[in-house]
């Protein structure tokens, strides 16, 4: 009989428990595939947005070059509240004038065509006026996303040509992402790839554990461990293909929904960031192969091994302690140093890199050392309780946690990683937000593009001048209206910026303003990073949570023997529940407490990247405590339910 045929026969012959475990694996694979596809969405969306921005780039005739085009475009970087608004003013829109993407025609003189998002935003800001808005919107081809605020205003007939070169076409080279590919790849690997691989490995392991009796029977019947591994590998690979296809299908449904709800910090059109079919096929095949390899390795060691119970190895744990203790100390030292730093300087790059490395090392250390730590701590506590001869249920729970330390330790480690990831990721998001959206810069006007009459008109608006930036050659201290070079900045708040810019545009439509962020590149970088980190955090958290659930199920299933034995001697249900809760929740409680401490320190050092003054942000503490409480509550609830269920009738035969 062929390996595949035998695998299918065994799957068909498996009982309800086996069907549940296979379903858990298929769901795990689906989640992993979905996670990878969602986690890589933001860079794909950014690339498509960059293409859209490039498509509307103006191609101008060179100075003095002959051209028949009279189309002139002046673009201001305005903002509405804290949202950037690309405000284009146009003259010379003859019938043969080139059209930017997203427009089917130029507005008539004195009219404005706006993006759908700007149209909605203007309804919420009746004090902001835009001349002659027509009920026609800029199409998706002319926008980088559904949230983008863009307007094209054609000045009234008879207006003088704008002070800009004639535009002969639209479309330019695509500006690649501002985030280095290496950084993006690292982020996606750490936040998405790692948890996905972890989930797959744990799912396969749980299935292998369920087949321990079957494997022993097959080996006794004369099947070699290698062939057992092959059969199991086919079984798992078949389930992985089903799960991966489900994941791909789910991603197709989730992608437009995520784009419309803005859960990842930005919105996109359904067609933006779509996954190529080739990538979907490649991912499905890769996942099936990864599962095949993991399954074969897991089963080979199980089929060739002995039934003896194994406790966590102290030598492996030592590596975790050696890695984790200095990492935690490094984070604490960095935190103290940065918090006591005078002024509001951002942390140096070396400190940020050190905090990232220390956080990763601490997470790795928790994963490596958790089983041994759980075994040591719970056994010690149980011995202390035994000396006092109190609470046999709690003592038995602690003994169980120590005895099954591989499984309970994995649960505990995953919960701690969840907490640390949440805290550090939140720190990064806070830093990115502070970096990109600092105090508003006001409205800047390039004086070299203005005439004396325009400057007088500006002065007549009665705006508060924040700064005047004179050129190096200009040493006079006269009023800014007398300058024909340098910059003047008018002070405005987020609330009044749009009103003031609309007043200036109405008065001086031919004047280009800059009311956006200080550094547009920085904002683009921060926006993309925010998207990547949020997507990675959401996906990573989801995958680690799923892995935690798989581990919990494994612990639950591994308690069957104990539950049957306790039931046989008449252990009260309440005591059974206490045993289960202690066994499953106590290790999680201990490691999440460590996770909260290390995660908060890491998160604060991440916040320091944007400035050390307010680096001890309470949002980081909340982001650590909330998942810690949720994880402990989830585990305790599962344990309470599991503990209250009696062993199934006939389970004494398993003892």
């Amino acid at each position: 009989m062929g390996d595949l045929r035998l695998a299918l026969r065994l799957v068909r012959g498996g009982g309800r428990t086996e069907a549940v475990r296979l379903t858990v694996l298929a769901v795990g694979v689906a989640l992993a595939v979905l996670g990878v596809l969602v986690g890589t969405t933001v860079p794909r969306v950014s690339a498509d947005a960059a293409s859209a921005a490039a498509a509307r780039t103006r191609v101008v005739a060179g100075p003095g070059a002959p051209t028949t085009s009279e189309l002139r475009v002046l673009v201001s970087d305005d903002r509405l509240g804290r949202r950037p608004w690309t405000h284009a003013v146009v003259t010379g829109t003859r019938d043969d004038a080139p059209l930017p993407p997203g427009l089917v025609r130029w507005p008539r003189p004195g009219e404005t065509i706006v993006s759908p998002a700007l149209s909605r935003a203007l309804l919420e800001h009746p004090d902001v006026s835009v001349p002659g808005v027509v009920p026609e919107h800029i199409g998706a081809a002319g926008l980088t996303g559904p949230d983008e605020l863009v307007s094209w205003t054609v000045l009234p007939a008879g207006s003088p040509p704008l002070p800009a070169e004639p535009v002969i076409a639209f479309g330019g080279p695509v500006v690649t992402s501002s985030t280095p590919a290496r950084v993006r790849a690292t982020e996606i690997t750490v936040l998405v790839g790692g948890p996905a691989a972890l989930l797959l490995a744990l799912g396969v392991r749980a299935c292998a554990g369920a087949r321990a009796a079957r494997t022993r029977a097959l080996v006794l019947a004369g099947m070699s461990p290698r062939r057992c591994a092959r059969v199991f590998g086919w079984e798992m690979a078949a389930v992985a293909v089903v799960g991966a296809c489900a994941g791909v299908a789910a991603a197709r449904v989730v992608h437009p929904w995520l784009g419309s709800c803005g859960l990842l910090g930005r919105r996109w059109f359904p067609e933006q960031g779509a996954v190529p079919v080739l990538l979907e096929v490649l991912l499905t095949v890769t996942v099936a192969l990864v599962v095949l390899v993991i399954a074969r390795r897991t089963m080979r060691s199980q089929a060739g091994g002995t039934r003896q119970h194994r406790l966590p190895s102290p030598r492996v744990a030592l590596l975790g302690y050696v890695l984790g203790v200095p990492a935690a100390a490094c984070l604490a030292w960095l935190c103290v140093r940065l918090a006591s730093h005078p002024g509001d300087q951002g942390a140096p790059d070396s400190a940020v890199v050190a905090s990232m490395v220390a956080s990763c090392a601490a997470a790795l250390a928790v994963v490596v050392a958790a089983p041994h730590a759980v075994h040591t701590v719970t056994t010690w506590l149980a011995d202390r309780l035994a000396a006092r001869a109190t609470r046999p249920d709690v003592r038995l729970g602690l003994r169980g946690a120590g005895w099954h330390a591989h499984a309970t330790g994995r649960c505990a480690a995953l919960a701690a990683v969840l907490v640390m990831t949440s805290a550090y990721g939140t720190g990064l998001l806070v830093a990115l937000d502070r970096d990109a959206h600092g105090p508003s810069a006001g409205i800047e006007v390039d004086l070299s593009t203005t005439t004396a009459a325009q400057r007088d008109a500006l002065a007549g608006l009665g705006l508060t001048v924040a700064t005047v930036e004179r050129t190096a050659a200009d040493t006079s201290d006269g009023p800014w209206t007398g300058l024909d070079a340098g910059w003047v900045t008018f002070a405005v708040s987020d609330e009044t910026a749009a009103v003031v810019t609309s007043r200036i545009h109405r008065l001086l439509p031919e004047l280009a303003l800059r009311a956006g962020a200080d550094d547009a590149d920085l904002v683009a970088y921060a926006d993309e990073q925010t998207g990547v980190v949020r997507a990675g955090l959401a996906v990573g958290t989801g995958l680690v949570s799923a892995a935690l659930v798989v581990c919990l199920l494994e612990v639950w299933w591994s308690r069957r023997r104990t539950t049957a034995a306790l039931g046989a001697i008449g252990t009260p249900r309440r005591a059974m529940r206490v045993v289960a809760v202690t066994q499953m929740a106590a290790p999680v409680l201990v490691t999440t407490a460590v996770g909260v401490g290390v995660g908060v320190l890491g998160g604060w050092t991440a916040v320091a990247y944007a400035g050390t003054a307010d680096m001890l942000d309470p949002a980081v503490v909340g982001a650590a405590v909330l998942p810690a409480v949720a994880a402990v509550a989830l585990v305790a609830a599962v344990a309470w339910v599991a503990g209250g269920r009696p062993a199934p009738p006939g389970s004494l035969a398993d003892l």
Partner: protein
Amino acid sequence: MDPQGAYALVVEGLCVNLGGQPVLSSVNLTLPAATTVAVTGPSGAGKSTLLNALGGLQPAARGRVVVAGRDLNRLSDDERAELRLREVGFVLQSSGLVPELSLQENIALPLELAGMRRRGVRDRVAEVVAQLGLTTCARRRPSEVSGGQAQRAAVARAVAARPSVVLADEPTGALDSTNREIVLDLLLEQVERCGSLLVLVTHDPQVAARCARQVRIVDGRVAAGVGAAGG
């Protein structure tokens, strides 16, 4: 007083179904305290199911089981567990010890769960450990001792609380002949000391012969005229 209270175990018209199929049909037994009963019969006859039903681990489809004067049908799950804890001891083919605990802790567990005082637990555990010859391995876990030692620990745990009824399912089935004799001797000696009723399921005629009475189960019924005890 309930006239059945004089008996350690009363079974009336017991029917048990597994997976929709009848496994036991109209079983009647009336067993006094301080005696030993062997339940024999071919594989699949329903011997282990009967034992589980007597211990309240397997619900009856019809009929009733009265243990130490208490009708299991009238008890909740928690009350049945309480009854098992105080009045019933189980010995299974493969010890059925809690793998996480040492032999000593396994023996102490039912006593502690029943709320016995610390000194009482310590004394009683020391007593049965000595009686069953487990002193040298009492601190080891079940996976660290031989099958015979684990089975002796299972006997010790079953009798530690001096229950009214001890239910043993093939307690010597997985042991060699030497250990089989040792464990059986100890089991019989202990139930005699405690004055308990022992219901012992076995295939082995030699083991069955050591019991005072025998009940033969065939196709889920008590076979008549084969030395059936009581009713």
